[in-house]
């Protein structure tokens, strides 16, 4: 802006030349950028085309990568499904408190009210001994045998549903401890044992899944690295000439990095297909098994977001593998070897 008064004083031709100069620099920049992107497009297309030209080898690499990626992802999906089961169960966990034998119905009602006023408790249901006996009589099929008893052997019982804030393994345990300390409570039962075992098991499995994921990712990087190394060897002449005519390292690297990313894309897609196929194959038996356990357990598949993440991760791994190979081998190819001694 400060230049404009000066500019007005210049002879028209000089002004013209300068503004033309400014225009050309600007358009040169834009041209540079557009040719940069068009080169990227060209290289991406070209490396995809090269993979297409060796379909068998490409498919093999994709499959190896797909299997290696599908394994840990399958394990993680299974874990996610199991965690769904345990969290569903935690929310429905109820604490059963058996009261001491001498406790009267009135005392039991006071206990119920006390517990109900606790903020950590959602609901308390009192089952008096007579109701309990009736229930037992009808559900156990021991009707006649129970008639021989002179006395009702059952105590009053409180069924405690933990509040929203206490629906965790720890919260339930604190509540159990509290109820156990109350006067007149004989025994407290909560079936948290198997839940904890399941939690411990899913934690162990999730560690194992991560370890497997890391190991297999490393394997994928090495496989792609080796494949790209071979393609570097195949294109040795081209690399030499490109370096000779002033190709930067980035220019020489680019096709191989794209090759790695395409391997990754194919591997990710194969992994997705494998996962969907095994899910479909397993869904019938899983449903039957869950039905037997009266559970609504289902194997969850990959969400669209997770599918995208899987494919992007696979492409990154492929790219990384290619990068390792390129780093190791491109520097070895030096145009100095063209010209003899």
């Amino acid at each position, binding site marked *: 802006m400060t230049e404009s008064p000066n500019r007005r004083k210049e002879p028209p031709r000089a002004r013209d030349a300068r503004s033309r100069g400014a225009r050309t620099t600007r358009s040169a920049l834009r041209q540079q950028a557009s040719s940069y992107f068009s*080169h990227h497009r060209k290289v991406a297309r070209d490396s995809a085309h090269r993979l297409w030209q060796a379909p068998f080898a490409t498919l093999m690499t994709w499959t190896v990568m797909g299997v290696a990626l599908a394994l840990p992802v399958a394990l993680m999906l299974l874990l996610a499904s199991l965690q769904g089961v345990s969290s569903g169960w935690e929310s429905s966990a109820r604490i059963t408190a058996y009261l001491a034998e001498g406790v009267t119905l009135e005392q039991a009602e006071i206990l119920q009210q006390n517990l109900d006023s606790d903020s950590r408790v959602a609901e308390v249901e009192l089952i008096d001994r007579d109701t309990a006996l009736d229930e037992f009589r009808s559900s156990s099929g021991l009707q006649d045998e129970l008639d021989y008893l002179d006395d009702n052997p059952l105590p009053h019982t409180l069924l405690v549903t933990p509040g929203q804030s206490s629906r965790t393994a720890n919260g339930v345990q604190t509540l159990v401890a509290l109820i156990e300390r109350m006067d007149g409570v004989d025994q407290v039962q909560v079936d948290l044992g198997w839940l904890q075992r399941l939690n411990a098991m899913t934690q162990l499995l999730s560690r194992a899944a991560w370890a497997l994921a890391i190991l297999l990712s490393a394997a994928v990087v090495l496989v792609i690295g080796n494949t790209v190394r071979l393609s570097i060897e195949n294109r040795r002449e081209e690399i030499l000439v490109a370096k000779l005519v002033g190709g930067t390292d980035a220019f020489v690297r680019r096709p191989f990095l794209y090759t790695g990313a395409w391997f990754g894309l194919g591997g990710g897609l194969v992994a997705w297909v494998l996962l969907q196929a095994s899910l479909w194959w397993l869904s019938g038996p899983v449903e039957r098994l869950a039905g037997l356990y009266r559970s609504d357990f289902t194997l969850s598949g990959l969400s669209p977001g997770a599918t995208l993440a899987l494919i992007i991760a696979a492409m990154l791994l492929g790219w990384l593998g290619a990068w390792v190979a390129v780093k190791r081998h491109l520097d070895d190819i030096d145009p100095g070897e063209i010209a003899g001694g």
Partner: protein
Amino acid sequence: MIEFRQVTKRYDSDHTALRQVNFGLERGELAFLTGHSGAGKSTLLKLIMVMERPSAGEVVVGGQVLNRLPRRQVPYIRRHIGVVFQNHQLLFDRSVFDNVAMPLEVMGVPARDIGRRVRAALDKVGLLSKEKMNPLQLSGGEQQRVGIARAVVNKPPVLLADEPTGNLDPQLSADIMGLFAEFSQVGVTVLIASHDIALINNLGRRTLMLDQGRLVSSGGGGHD
């Protein structure tokens, strides 16, 4: 345009390829570099291409001292130097056009300009009609001319040639030399390594002669 100041290149303790070489080439000058094989011709060309670095002394191309040039700057220097090889280093997996286009692609020239400039270079060497052919289908002389087209397609100020007529008969060699002379007339500095003494003497140009790494003659009005 090219200047060597006391340049020494030692490969091992017992093998010295160049010893204190001094010379300068002006813009538009055409000179021959000659000597027995092993006299250091290729080493001298490699120093200009920054394929090698001097053990001592300075190599200056286009006003830039190459000794201290960082490695990642090297490609940009090479874009200003066209090179022609005896075995022409053409790629046989692509057409003549694509071979010649390589230096432009490396520089990021837009596609529409590439077409125009590649055809101009091919026209210059008389091979415009063969742009779609594979270099394998061409004769030795034609292949060499494709190599020259590739070397000059981005109009470099410096053109190096390493035994460009090594495999060619005298008539073809003379044609090629004629091409180099035309480039020097438009301001390109041309340095041709050759042991074809007869051809060199015919042309009567400045000749740098190497013997066991020493510059024994730089006749024709050189700098030193």
